[in-house]
């Protein structure tokens, strides 16, 4: 009997819930969902040992679409919630999901500090350069000349460069993925989860409703021409000159992750009272 394919304990399907996504048909986020479920199967994890944490927006709907433990919190605060969870429960695998509005605008400050804190979690941002859930306003990654109702003629404000910011802030793993290649996204998530510390995966995930022209991203996205570096200075040069379409792992750092809850107490409550006792 020659069975060439070994069966892992669970398949991607086991990580997909019965709850059907509200995303527009054609949305890149469907692909990210598929990639997440594949990645978790490839990592041979069990749904109860994984938590998917999110904020608000289209992408942030993802937790309930998985069979993992989910936390769908308030706008912009997915990283703090994920940080608290991972620090309190170091035994769990924590994925934090966000979008370009949730993660880079309202949650921008948390992004900087999550990178520098380096808690061992994976941050997946589905970037479509637009606010979808509130109907098409420009986000921090929107091109300055993209015209919308809120900013007719464009914002005139330059885009935020999430990967450069992540590197400068201390993220320990930086990758860019493209939702047009769900298997590629899955492979990058697997690597991100395996890498210790704060792993950042920016996924170009087109919005077919407000940014139909992003269907053209499949022509632009290409594998990064060189392998990742562990040298921040080299990574900085590459990321600064990057056109935003190099796909793959771009940086892997070697910083030690933030420590979680200690394994066991060393003192009793009564010991602490000693500090007050006269």
């Amino acid at each position: 009997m020659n069975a060439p394919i070994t069966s892992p304990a669970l398949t991607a399907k086991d990580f997909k819930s019965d709850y059907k996504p509200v995303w527009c048909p054609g949305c890149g986020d469907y692909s990210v969902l598929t990639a997440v479920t594949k990645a978790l199967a490839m990592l041979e994890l069990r749904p109860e040992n994984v938590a998917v944490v999110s904020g608000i927006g289209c992408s942030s709907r993802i937790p309930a679409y998985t069979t993992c433990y989910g936390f769908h919190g308030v706008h912009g605060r997915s990283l703090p919630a994920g940080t608290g969870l991972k620090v309190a429960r170091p035994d769990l695998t924590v994925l934090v999901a966000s979008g370009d509005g949730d993660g880079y605008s309202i949650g921008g400050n948390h992004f900087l500090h999550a990178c520098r804190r380096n808690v061992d979690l994976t941050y997946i941002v589905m970037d479509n350069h637009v606010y979808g859930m509130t109907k098409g306003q420009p986000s921090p990654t929107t091109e300055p000349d993209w015209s919308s109702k809120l900013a007719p003629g464009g914002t005139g404000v330059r885009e935020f460069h999430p990967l450069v910011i992540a590197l400068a802030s201390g993220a320990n793993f930086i990758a860019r993925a493209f939702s047009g290649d769900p298997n590629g996204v899955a492979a990058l998530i697997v690597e991100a989860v395996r890498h210790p510390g704060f792993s950042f995966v920016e996924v170009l995930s087109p919005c077919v409703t407000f940014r139909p022209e992003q269907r053209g991203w499949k022509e632009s996205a290409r594998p990064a021409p060189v392998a990742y570096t562990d040298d921040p200075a080299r990574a900085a040069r590459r990321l600064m000159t990057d056109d935003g379409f190099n796909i793959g792992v771009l940086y892997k750092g070697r910083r030690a992750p933030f420590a979680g809850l200690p394994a066991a107490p060393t003192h009793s409550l009564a010991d602490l009272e000693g500090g007050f006792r006269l």
Partner: protein
Amino acid sequence: MKANHSSVSVALAGSGGAGVMTAGNMLLEAAAAAGYYGLMTRTSGPQIRGGEAAAMVRVSTFATDAQDDRFQVLAAIDWQNVNRFATELPLGPESILIGDQAHGEPPEVFTKTGARYFPVPLKQLAGQVQGGWPNMIALGVLAGLMGLPAQALEAAINKAMKKGVEAGIAAAKLGLAQAANLDGFKLKEIPAKSSRWLITGNEAAGYGALRGGVRFVAAYPITPATELLEWLSPALTKVGGTLVQAEDELASINMALGASYGGVPALTATSGPGLSLMIEALGLGVTAEVPVVVVDVMRTGPSTGIATKSEQADLNIALYGLHGDAPHIVIAPNSLSDCVAATEWAVGLAESLQVPAIVLSDQYFGQARAVVDVPAFEKKSFHRAKANSNGQPYKRYALTDSGVSPMAIPGTPGITYTADGLEHNERGTPSSQSGDHLAQMEKRARKISQLDPGDAWASIEGEGDVALLTFGSCTGPAREAFARARAEGFDARLVSLRMLAPAQPAKLKQALAGVKRVLVLEQNHSGQFLRYLRSEYELPGEVKSLRRPGPLPFRPEEIYREIVRP
């Protein structure tokens, strides 16, 4: 000089570098060592270093966390800008001023109270001891004026000073000798000593949190809550927990929610500006039913206000600040030592009801240090109901009679779910159906409204047809006013609420049966507590509001006058 005082209040003022806080703490330690109760509060100018400051120490034969009507002694190492504290340092003709003539005369604002001035050459005396400091001379003078024994002073100096102990003791003894020449305010002998703690309200709240089971704290530094966090940080590590310094208050509350969702009881501490930032996430805690506790060490607001001074003006935001209908818990400790039990209780309620709880402490409690009787703790403990798989589809938000639904903790197989701030059905699936919204709102309201706090909801003391209603740090001076009234044969009822939300109208009605006159005491400008009482309760008879904004505390005398007024 007769030892006939049951309470002596002294203040030691001076500019930065004079060491008035260090000396104040040693005086408190000396009082404790001599078997007395004591309370130290502090005031300071806006400078980070070098500014004027005053340590205010009250030593008494009875337990109190209130400041007295007046100070018997105001001592100053120097008088630069000490006049700024005039309203906080009330003096009278029986008071005395101690100062060093090398630093000029006391400001007129103090001398015009009738207080007598006794110059003491603090600097010159300190010069007589190798390594001596004027603050240690002043410490000796103040201890001597109260009649504290030299050995208690030595013990305090030994405990507090890391180096220069001998010089410290020698200088303090020179001060003691100076006091012998002055009319003092000798304390009565104290009866047998009970077992006591020396603790700040912030430490007490931190310890209460740990007793309640908190093992994760995330917080952002803010005056006057920072010491609570600084106490918790090493303490948590010892008991198997941790503290994360967050990038802002939005992060700290959301980190706490994340940790609690993971099954680890979690807390954050802040003050008004931080609480304002946390409000949205508290609503998430309500809807997603994730327990979390916020200790709000209230300071003078709005906005940055007076960051270092106390006020009870966050009551409205704590009760009503959340958007939507968001039932939650608000608890207020009503003494410095009650910060332990009140915080522990809040953690227990949050955990057992799966709801956010706010503890309204304030700067007065938080930063005051006092000798207190070791609190008696409730044996009752509260726990979060946790779910396990029974093979059925898991309903995280099942509509139970109590409103509490067992919570799945990540790691538990077979019952994974998504905690959601979106309205949801019993399974936790987002829903915009009116029926689901109503059913879940009623469930969330039910678990709070069905809560029976027993006798813990308020401290009720005394009888009579006059009642005083208050909460928090106004309780201390009210208690003292009641004690004075009782000593004169006039009894009245003191009702100090500890549970502010949910309101307990039936219990208050019972507590106020037969009352003809109600006084409502609070430290804010607009009468937030009065408005709250009027909206949630029926107040019998004539109602009078006693209120003023921070930072000046109420003093027993003014409350006493209102109680006994015919």
